[in-house]
């Protein structure tokens, strides 16, 4: 089922941040959300997750997400916040298992299925070897993967991830994108915000480029990510190349005009 966002308006403390934004997210696709700082990427994601007040329509299949109970919504949509919070000294496995909360009956112990899903999430994010370690004592990049595994363990048809690759080493950045691709391959719809343009171009089926709370461009990376567009949206000059894996985009300087 498709996630449809229609005519979304969001204001934060009276200041309009998103203006009549519409987009859709289909099962099986990884959609990259791009744009400069302050363009509204995080606000869009938080609005979709129901964490900020928004006017407009957010529907999954036929259901209006705003009309569902928080628990029912948590079984449709998982949200990975940009701010990484690891409370107490929870073991990695226990932390990832928190993702099962929307599926568990109150007071019931985890089922074998819960445990299997947690195990798969640990393996997918390459943190299974850390399972018994306290998450608070891991490196920043490791914590990012543990928290991503928590969102994966929520087993929702939609996953909204806010900069899951930031702070990761190059190998784990690609591993993260590969993991998201694999989840999409299982039929999930993934929306992921990114700052690394090459990563977005090579791993996303589609990119949505935001600027000042509006969609400035949308489409397949090869179709919309060119030097002129990057100059317009980010205010940077860029070297654009191509190999068999897709585009390579390297920002080389500022265009001079402030974005």
């Amino acid at each position, binding site marked *: 089922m498709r996630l449809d966002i229609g005519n979304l308006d969001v204001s934060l403390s009276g200041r309009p941040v998103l203006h009549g934004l519409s987009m859709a997210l289909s099962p099986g696709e990884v959609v990259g959300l791009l744009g400069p700082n302050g363009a509204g990427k995080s606000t869009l994601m*938080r609005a979709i*997750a*129901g*964490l900020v007040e928004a006017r407009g329509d957010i529907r999954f299949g036929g259901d209006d997400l705003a009309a569902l*109970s*928080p*628990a*029912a*919504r*948590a*079984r449709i*949509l*998982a*949200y*990975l*916040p940009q*701010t990484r*919070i*690891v*409370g*107490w*000294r*929870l*073991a990695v496995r*226990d*932390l990832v298992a*928190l*993702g099962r*909360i*929307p599926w568990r009956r*109150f*007071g019931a112990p985890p089922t074998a299925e819960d445990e299997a899903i947690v195990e798969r999430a640990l393996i997918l994010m390459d943190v299974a070897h850390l399972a018994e370690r306290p998450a*608070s004592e891991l490196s920043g990049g490791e914590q990012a993967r543990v*928290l991503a595994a*928590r969102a994966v363990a*929520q087993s929702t048809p939609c996953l909204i991830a806010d900069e899951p690759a930031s702070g990761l080493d190059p190998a784990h950045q690609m591993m993260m994108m590969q993991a998201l691709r694999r989840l999409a391959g299982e039929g999930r719809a993934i929306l992921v915000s990114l700052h690394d343009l090459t990563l977005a171009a090579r791993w996303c089926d589609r990119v949505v480029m935001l600027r000042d709370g509006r969609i400035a461009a949308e489409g397949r990376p090869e179709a919309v990510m060119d030097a002129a567009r990057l100059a317009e949206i980010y205010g940077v000059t860029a070297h654009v190349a191509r190999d068999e894996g897709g585009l390579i985009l390297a920002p080389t300087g500022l265009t001079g005009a402030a974005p």
Partner: protein
Amino acid sequence: MRPLALNALLGLLALALFLASLAVGPAELGPSESVRGLLAGGSEAAAVIMREIRLPRAILGLAIGFTLGISGAVLQGFLRNPLAEPGIIGVSAMAAFGAVAAFYTGLAGSTLYALPAGALIGALLAVLLLLALAARSGSTLTLILAGVALSSLSGALTSLVLNLSPNPFASYEIIFWLLGSLKDRSIEHVWLALPLMAGGWLLIALSARAIDALSLGEEAAASLGIHMARTRLLIVVGVALGVGAATAVAGTIGFVGLVVPHLIRPLTNRLPSRLLLPAGLGGAALLLAADVAARVVLPAGELNVGVLTALIGAPFFLWLVVRSRREVF
């Protein structure tokens, strides 16, 4: 340690200290005499001492300790703050002020129930103010700030009452009550406070899942389907019922709620929900132990148990502050 083993161990410890509390007192009763007095009843001295003096005291020690322990555990989990304790949301300070007001107006002398009623009204007022102050924002930080403000305000009002009190004996009585004690409480106090405390425990237990999810922060918890406003209501009302009732019958007993979760947490897997029951049992054990110690250390004068817990608690708090800077929770 496995959760079941931990709970069984702490339960046995609390039970042993409950029995010790029944056995200790100025009247020298032998074990068989005590048991007979407790079970058989009658009007002989042993029965009166056991049923009307020691039993209420032991029950209140158990229940109030449990309340303070579980309240501290739920607040630390909810606020994601290792320094949180039942006093932080201002309920105990407001309850104390309510009781002091009952003293001051002279109502406390007229009936047994005036003092606890004053404290409960204070606690209720605290809840209404807290929810009104913190209602507009879902943030737990607002709740802490509102609680701190409320604590300072009720502290100031209590001082004002002491200032205005008509004679030094009234002031002395107020201060002595504020120190917290389980001495000379009757079975009526038990019937008054126990149902309210049990209600508080139930509400706190219902928030177990929410405080686990809050380990990941408020946004992630909300995205896991946790209803933040409902959780806050459950916890604030639950803690206020328990701690309000505890303060109403025993005055303010500090530091049990702060210390116990920290003593118990390393023995659990550190999920906030898994700490609730052990922290309650540990709190019961600690308060019973302190109350027994208060009777044994100074048999003639008898130390106030609130003084004793603060004497142990304050140095522990300092150690905690030093340790928390290394983020080992």
